[in-house]
């Protein structure tokens, strides 16, 4: 073990583990739950700053050679996920209060994510992946408010288990062939024509597809997103998805996919884009709609893997940032409601502009950005992805993907239509104005998003 690399390179992880320990101690020692949110917030913020600093400083190190190594790409990935986690903590504070084991679970999950992003072997990667996922199964159950929640949590758990099994099977095939657990074997297998290696790589990739909810492995997402409470849904949609994609990014490295892999990497994401956007049109509530939207966005994100080279990292990171910020923004601005099942029914949003203009405008901006309409950051993100696909020579896939994204415009605009163009219906009762904490969370998403929209030229070369 390399001590100085361990101390400096894993600084974000250290902050998180300190936060986790403090939270556990706090739960034992403190009289009440007050203060847990503050501890979590400070630690995650410190970890985010540390990760950003390491990334901008271009820090490279090997705290545990062969197991954990730190690169700027990994640090930026961690910074991205941790920055996105901050508004989620605020939202959780707003929605679920100080109580319960919420914050330890969130911080533990973030620790897993961070570990996963700097892992060099499949062993560490698996550890990180599971550490990221397991707390989320419990989080879905947190703040149990409706009958469908346990079913959703169970579905998520079972399919998460299936993903784990698929992942391990793929890894065992790769290990059987190469006799090493170094993650480099995946990148080699992706580009090879050897059937065994390809089978292993395919299984690993399918596990990622399942975790990221790519068609046809997407069925868990709408139920889990709907059943969980809003902050947890936001966490799953923005951060867990980012974690999975960033891990995939690390696994792929600079690999150029072989033709067989290209088929898999193009067709399933394309199906995801088309089906996600089509199915989202029919959803009666915002959380389910966002679940299908996230299925479509997983498709765009995996599309970027068709291209090789540094553009892939840049486009995926930028896309995750734009997508994550805007998804969180929509959830943060969603007015609370006495009955959680009513909270995000689209009918409840009717005439929202007349009651709560700020919430309506902010949700509207989020929808437009997710639809990829300029000048919002979602547009530059989409531009980057499709430029990447086309630069790799897959013009047809790019055009089909863009047409698929066109299908999505309708349901995003429908939300705006409900909020702005429906008469100011008196709410069915129980809808409350957005609270200060949630406004702060919304601003934490909105301001960086605007900065990214105005100056993408500043961000892109630094990624």
């Amino acid at each position: 073990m390399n001590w100085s690399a361990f101390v400096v390179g894993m600084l974000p992880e250290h902050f998180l583990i300190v936060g986790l320990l403090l939270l556990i101690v706090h739960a034992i020692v403190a009289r009440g739950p007050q203060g847990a949110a503050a501890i979590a917030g400070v630690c995650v913020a410190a970890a985010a700053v540390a990760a950003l600093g390491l990334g901008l400083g271009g820090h490279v190190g090997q705290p545990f050679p062969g197991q954990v190594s730190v690169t700027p790409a990994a640090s930026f990935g961690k910074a991205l996920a941790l920055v996105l986690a901050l508004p989620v903590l605020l939202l959780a504070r707003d929605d679920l209060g100080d109580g319960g084991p919420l914050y330890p679970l969130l911080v533990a999950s973030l620790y897993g994510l961070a570990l996963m992003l700097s892992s060099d072997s499949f062993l560490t990667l698996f550890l990180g992946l599971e550490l990221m996922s397991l707390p989320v199964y419990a989080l879905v159950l947190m703040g149990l408010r409706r009958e469908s929640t346990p079913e959703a949590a169970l579905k998520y758990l079972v399919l998460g288990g299936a993903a784990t099994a698929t992942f391990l099977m793929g890894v065992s095939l790769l290990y059987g062939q190469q006799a090493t657990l170094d993650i480099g074997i995946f990148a080699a297998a992706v580009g090879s024509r050897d059937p065994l290696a390809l089978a292993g790589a395919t299984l690993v990739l399918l596990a990622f597809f399942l975790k990221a909810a790519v068609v046809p492995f997407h069925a868990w997402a709408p139920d889990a997103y709907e059943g969980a409470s809003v902050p947890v849904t936001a966490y799953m949609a923005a951060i867990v998805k980012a974690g999975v994609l960033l891990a995939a990014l690390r696994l792929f490295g600079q690999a150029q996919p072989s033709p067989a892999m290209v088929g898999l990497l193009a067709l399933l994401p394309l199906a995801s884009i088309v089906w996600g956007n089509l199915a989202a049109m029919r959803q009666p509530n915002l959380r389910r709609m966002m679940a299908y939207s996230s299925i479509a966005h997983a498709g765009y994100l995996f599309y970027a893997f068709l291209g090789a080279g540094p553009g892939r990292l840049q486009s995926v990171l930028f896309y995750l940032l734009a997508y994550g910020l805007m998804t969180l923004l929509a959830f943060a601005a969603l007015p609370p409601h006495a009955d959680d099942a009513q909270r995000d029914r689209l009918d409840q949003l009717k005439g929202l502009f007349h009651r709560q203009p700020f919430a309506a405008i902010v949700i509207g901006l989020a929808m437009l950005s997710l639809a990829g309409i300029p000048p919002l950051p979602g547009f530059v993100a989409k531009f980057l992805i499709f430029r990447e696909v086309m630069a790799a020579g897959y013009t047809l896939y790019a055009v089909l993907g863009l047409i698929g994204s066109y299908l999505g415009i309708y349901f995003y605009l429908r939300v705006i239509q409900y909020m702005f163009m429906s008469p100011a219906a008196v709410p069915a009762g129980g809808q409350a104005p957005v609270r200060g904490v949630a406004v702060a969370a919304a601003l934490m998403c909105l301001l960086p998003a605007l900065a990214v929209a105005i100056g993408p030229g500043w961000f892109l070369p630094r990624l």
Partner: protein
Amino acid sequence: MSDALALQLVLWLPLAGMFVLWAVPASSPGTVRGLSFWLMVAQFVLCAWLYARFEPGVPGLQFATRVPWIESWGVYFSIGLDGYNVLLVLLTGFLGPLVVAGSFSAIDKELKLFHAMVFLIQFAMIGTFLAQDLFVFYVFWETMLIPMFLMIGIWGGERRIYATLKFVLYTAFGSILMLAAVIYLVLAAQRAGHAASFAFADLLRLGLPPDVQLWLFAAFGLSFAIKVPMVPLHTWLPDAHVEAPTTGSVILAGVLLKMGTYGFLKLGFPLFPAATLQLAPLILWLSVASIVIGACLALVQDDIKKIIAYSSISHLGYVMLGLISLDLIGIQGAIVQMVSHGLTAAGLFLMIGMVYERCHTRELAAYGGLAKLVPLYSVAFMILTLASIGLPTTSGFTGEFLVLLGAFNAAWALHLQGQDFALAPAVLAVTGVVLGALYMLRFAAKFLFGPTRAPVARLTDLNRREAAILAALIAAVFWLGLFPAEPLRKTETAAREFRQLVLSARADALPGSRP
């Protein structure tokens, strides 16, 4: 103040206005309206000043600014005035205050949001005209969509949701294909060894292979043709116009419809000259089809807004005809026709809005005998009608006459080369003039003359505000009709350049063709 700074101000003033409005309390509608109006006036004054300073006969950009935006891709925030956009920027600036003043009595709900959207759309339209970088152009082009979506959807008529979604989904489909083409175009340039750049000036020199041009032109052309709109892609327009509030119709007819023709003028034809020449017969026939079918449809409408909506399709067909004639006179005529249509259609929609506010019906059959009841209104209406028909001394005449002259010039030149495909469409286009006179005069006759009907019995004549708006419009119509030399001089260099760019593809294929 330097001229480049003034041009920046023209662009950013509306956006600033949008945020300034935020600070105004919603409880004082007078302040919101007054502030919006005077900001628009300030913008117009700047536009007029820049127009006066614009040097004719100088090729290339004037008052240009170029700031790096996304440097690693070669995207520059690059704007400037040239012969292509100078008249259209002036038109947009001119209509701005009139649009705001025209909405004073018509809009009373969500006033702040309404004016914010007017500012946003003004910003996006000016930006689209001024952009000299394809990425910037696309961003502005798409930004126009959202304020229009809200404007029709919030302040529109009964079927506003249907109309606004139809409008957005139609235009967005074109845009998404254009996006694919934009990405492909820039990557193709890079593959050919050029530096990464979105600048129009660089893209115009690419010289892509003809088969690639054809695909890219199809994507760009579809997007532009939907916006124009050209038959058969026009079905969104009547719905959008009928359901939109007066302000929305005025912006739509006044400026937004010119985006499509401007797109062809600035990008579609010059970027892909080989494809343009190859598809010229098709474009020619579609233009003539737009002229004739638009006019025929206008002839049978009972809804007064729909008459003007269909007449717009017909008038923009002339613009397309002038552009595709590739004759200097025709191209110049097309540019003038764009401005002329912007003035007359905007004026007619404003006037329809004025009676609609008083009578709450758009049925042509409900009106009649307005000439006796409201003489001032009727005189103004008649002048705009005649300008729309293209009576000499009005702007409509300058535009249509030059377009037809150009079309015949081109058709005859082609005939001398043994190609006869252009003669029949040119002749057919002339019938459009007759049809135009027919539907507009039918409209005016039923509307202004004949027996007075019940809904209009208590009609009041123009008030001072309305009279001032119309006086400004009519003055502009006569200015362009009586003194077209000055504006034509300002656009001539650009028209020559356009023609040369498109015909460069023919010069390779047919040596010894017309200079």
